[in-house]
């Protein structure tokens, strides 16, 4: 409705402020921010370093809380949840993709992808099926027994994406997912994110410094000095 692309909002920020305290100095990062992301939307967030892009992702995924304002994601008002409920919310609704993949080095690709499923009621057989399915989606069928250090950066990030989607969350948050990758691998990852958005209906919020990455999004927002400015608006297919 009030979302630019017309779908139901998966994310709604209202009057959100975030101030970090460093010793006694208060560092205002976000001030009175409003943001709506529609279900099924692919949003890119750009902006200078330190502008608060990661902070927005943290607020949206409930690993940080705003100093003021309301954060509603997938219909849930995060301000009303305690730590345990926030953990359950993340497990259920949010898939994380990090710049440096953040795979657990001592676990195989299979075991890394399986982690979020340990938080569900699925039995071992069902978990195995899901893990193999998503490893297939990201094109790493034959790599399930590899450890992260035996994979290339692009492959590691694909394992991380498999881990992000294995429990079928509606929202993917990606913080510079191609930041550590060469151009070819970056293209693969962006293709994959686009496919997850189109074919599997995942809403994606991606922070990036790379204009070529931002081109994949329906909408690009620039964050500067606490203000969001819309720069590009493409029609959704």
């Amino acid at each position, binding site marked *: 409705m009030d979302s630019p692309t017309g779908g139901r909002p998966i994310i709604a920020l209202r009057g959100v402020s975030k101030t970090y305290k460093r010793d006694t100095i208060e560092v205002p990062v976000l001030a009175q921010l409003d943001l709506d992301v529609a279900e099924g939307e692919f949003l890119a967030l750009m902006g200078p370093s330190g502008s608060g892009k*990661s*902070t927005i992702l*943290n607020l949206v*995924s409930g*690993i*940080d809380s705003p100093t003021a304002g309301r954060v509603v994601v997938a219909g849930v008002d995060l301000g009303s949840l305690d*730590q*345990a409920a926030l*953990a*359950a*919310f*993340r*497990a*259920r609704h*949010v898939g*994380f993709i*990090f710049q*440096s993949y*953040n795979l*657990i*080095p*001592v*676990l195989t690709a299979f*075991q890394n992808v399986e*982690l*979020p499923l*340990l*938080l569900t009621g699925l039995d071992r057989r069902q978990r195995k099926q899901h893990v193999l399915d998503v490893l297939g989606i990201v094109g790493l069928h034959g790599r399930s027994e590899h450890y992260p250090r035996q994979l290339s950066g692009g492959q590691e990030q694909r394992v991380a994406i498999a*881990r992000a989607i294995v429990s079928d969350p509606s929202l993917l948050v990606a913080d510079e997912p191609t930041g550590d990758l060469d151009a070819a691998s970056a293209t693969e990852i962006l293709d994959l994110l686009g496919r997850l958005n189109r074919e599997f209906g995942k809403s994606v919020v991606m922070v990036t410094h790379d204009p070529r990455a931002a081109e994949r999004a329906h909408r690009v927002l620039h964050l500067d000095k606490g203000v969001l400015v819309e720069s590009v608006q493409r029609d959704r297919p």
Partner: protein
Amino acid sequence: MRLPIQYNLRNLVVRRTMTLMTAGGIALVVAVLVLTLALAHGFSATLVATGRPDNAIVLRSGSDSEMMSGLTREAARVIASDPAVARGADGEPLALSEMVVLVNLVRRGNPTASSNVSVRGVDARVLELRPDIGLREGRLFRAGMDEVVVGRNLGRRFEGCGLGEKLRMGGRDWTVVGTFDAGGSGFDSEIWGDAEAFLPAFDRSVWSSLTLRLKDPGALPALEARLEADPRLHATARIEQEYYRAQSQQLAAVIRALGLFLVVVMAAGAIFGALNTMYAAVGSRSREIATLLALGFPPRAILASFMVESVLLCLIGGVLGCLLALPVHGMSTGTTNWSSFSEVAFEFRLTPGILATGMLASVLLGLVGGWFPARAAARRPVSEALRAG
């Protein structure tokens, strides 16, 4: 909700040097604990095995040990005829008047070291009253002769105690004509000879104790009542096995107390090691922990996982410690029993219960050493830890 245990195992393997060093510290604590318990247990078991449950030992009332006791020949004769006492094939009461003295003997192979040994005067009835004891080599001493038999532990521990050797005590030379096997009990550390020959040699006129075979162990209270009722006898009776059990308690308690003190001191160091290792683990996996929390693992799953890791780490130490202590099982040693002032030989005895106690202690060390690091991990602020990289 639980993180897989392979996660912890692999992390321990990846950090194997640290793991082994920490586990080594735990292993030492567990080994000392296990050895202490095995020592105390071996000592108690030796003395407990020394008596029989159907024998009664009669001492002068008020004395806790044979060393401090004394019974006149007359009293011994009266008590032996008590109706509670079983009779032998010859119709005579199964009663043994005994005389115990301590003799200082020189250790074999070390002329400057010596120790007290119990010398017990008995008569030919002794093997009838103590049927678990048998001659191993040679023969029994003959009445009225300057002959002795010795327990199996003595020959290699003291000069003059080997078969055929001569032993000087009470101003006379005694020939060792036999050795006996008392099944590892305290008697194995004694020298036995003819009581009637010992009395004049050691300048004694009274018995130390009287050992009786009871028709029925349940008859003890009645026997005691009769002893008490006759003030001339001035004697008290208890079950022989109970008597030796009580003899072991004081020293066993001291062994345990000293050993456990050592264990506690060492454990403090080992816990510090575990604490350090786990803090290092938590510190180096900061981002990993944040990632798990971001994925939706609740803080208590992180807490549990690090506790599991700490316990696993210490369990490795527990197993190593038990393995370290294992070869000592059955090894023999000797100590002066504080209740009888004589040296008793006994063996370290490792039991499944003692090993289980050692493993339990390692788990405990893991829980204590893991708690603060695990809590620190679980309380990690996610967004900060993710930034820290």
